[in-house]
């Protein structure tokens, strides 16, 4: 079982990203759960989302305390406390930032791999708005595999209709531009 935690801000699509990934896994015939941590915060506030992925039916319903992967969708969040909390030793951190993955090595001490991508920039370029949830999926697929790019693209077509094309471009572009730092230990 693979557990992913997504960090974003209300209205920016972290929950959607978690759902799209789960849908992709499901569409490929495997099992997934996507859920979020909801609160009374409004648009703009930090939010958490989660995806669980498995080859078998997923029965577990408790929260995720020790994710295998942490994904940070929002550049501004990168300064926030608690992002690295619980990340499994040897896990993966995927960040939306223009910086180099290595720059975060001290922050994400548990991470075996750290990936960065300037998803905001890609989103602005491809979609015309800084909504980074589709772009970041490109980075995730690049680093983790998990699902095929075609599966994602098919979902975009159904979900975003007129905007599908642009999102496909964003995810592809992010896939290309993701940089990975592999600590090479605990793997």
């Amino acid at each position, binding site marked *: 079982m693979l557990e992913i935690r997504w960090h974003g801000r209300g*209205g920016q699509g972290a929950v959607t990203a978690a759902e799209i990934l789960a849908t992709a896994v499901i569409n490929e015939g495997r099992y997934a759960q996507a859920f979020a941590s909801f*609160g*009374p*915060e*409004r*648009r*703009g*506030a930090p939010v958490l989302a989660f995806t669980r992925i498995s080859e078998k039916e997923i029965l577990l319903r408790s929260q995720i305390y020790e994710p295998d992967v942490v994904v940070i969708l929002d550049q501004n969040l990168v300064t926030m406390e608690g992002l690295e909390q619980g990340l499994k030793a040897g896990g993966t951190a995927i960040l939306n930032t223009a910086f180099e993955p290595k720059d975060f090595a001290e922050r994400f001490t548990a991470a075996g791999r750290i990936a960065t991508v300037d998803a905001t920039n890609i989103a602005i370029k491809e979609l015309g708005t800084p909504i980074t949830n589709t772009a970041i999926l490109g980075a995730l697929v690049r680093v983790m595999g998990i699902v095929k790019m075609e599966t994602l693209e098919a979902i975009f077509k159904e979900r975003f209709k007129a905007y599908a094309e642009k999102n496909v471009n964003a995810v592809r572009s992010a896939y290309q531009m993701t940089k990975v730092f592999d600590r090479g230990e605990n793997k």
Partner: protein
Amino acid sequence: MSTAFRNIKDVPKEEYLAPGHRLCAGCTAATAIRQILKVAGRDTVVVSATGCVEVATSYFPQSAWKVPWVHVAFENTAAVASGIESAMKALYRKKKTTERVNIIALGGDGGTFDIGLQALSGALERSHDFIYICYDNEAYMNTGVQRSSATPYCAATTTCPPGKMSSGKRTEKKDLVAIAVAHNIPYAATATPSYPFDLMNKVKRALDVEGPALVHVLTPCPTGWRFDTDSGIDIGKLAVLTGLWPLYEVVDGVTKLTVQVPKREPVKKYLEIQGRFKHLKEADVAEVQKRADMLAAKFGLGPVREQVQA
């Protein structure tokens, strides 16, 4: 009636709504409450209905309120206020307290027009001395933008979405002030934080009268109406300038416009900047314009200004 607030100098500096609340960036309901509490001051008890304002200002272990504040449920705000008013009266009469307070009941449009209407009507009829403020963002925002009976004609919400068989909300916005006035209360008014002095003067008058008063405040909501977070105040102004939100007050049954609009803006200007009206066709826009014209005729606003041809 007094006009206590004419310019920024008249506005008390004290804040009774602390920062750090969790309302959306750009929420004009927060602006409205700041303005209202400045008028009401420290000796005020606020009763809140469930809704955005309540949920986002009172997340244990913290609260944004600097005046005594209570929330019980969604539908009973005016009833809780009735109880507080009566108790304060009895305790004062029986010399068990010397405190006298302003009582402000605060509900969103859902908590006022719909599920809280009966409690409100009862409190108005019983003539408690309190003021009821409805902050109207024209839908159930706290639960994710569902239709209320304050949602305007044609607007899209998640429970009246446009679609093949639908072009948004089918019925008219309920006329809360008319309903309140039908209860023969001494004071009722419309307002919006985009016109802060108008709003603050009305709150003052509402507090000054004996018996129940109602102030109906339009508070544009970036999240539910789908506009940029910086635009709420401007959109409130446009609501007034188009004639869709006439600013008036009804004192002992006599209606008086408080902000004249000599030349109205066409409603299109108001509609086109909001996502909730994105689906409107020309004919729908014309329908909404008709409604604005009717309101203008009713309240004595000016004609629509000539539009410069592009």
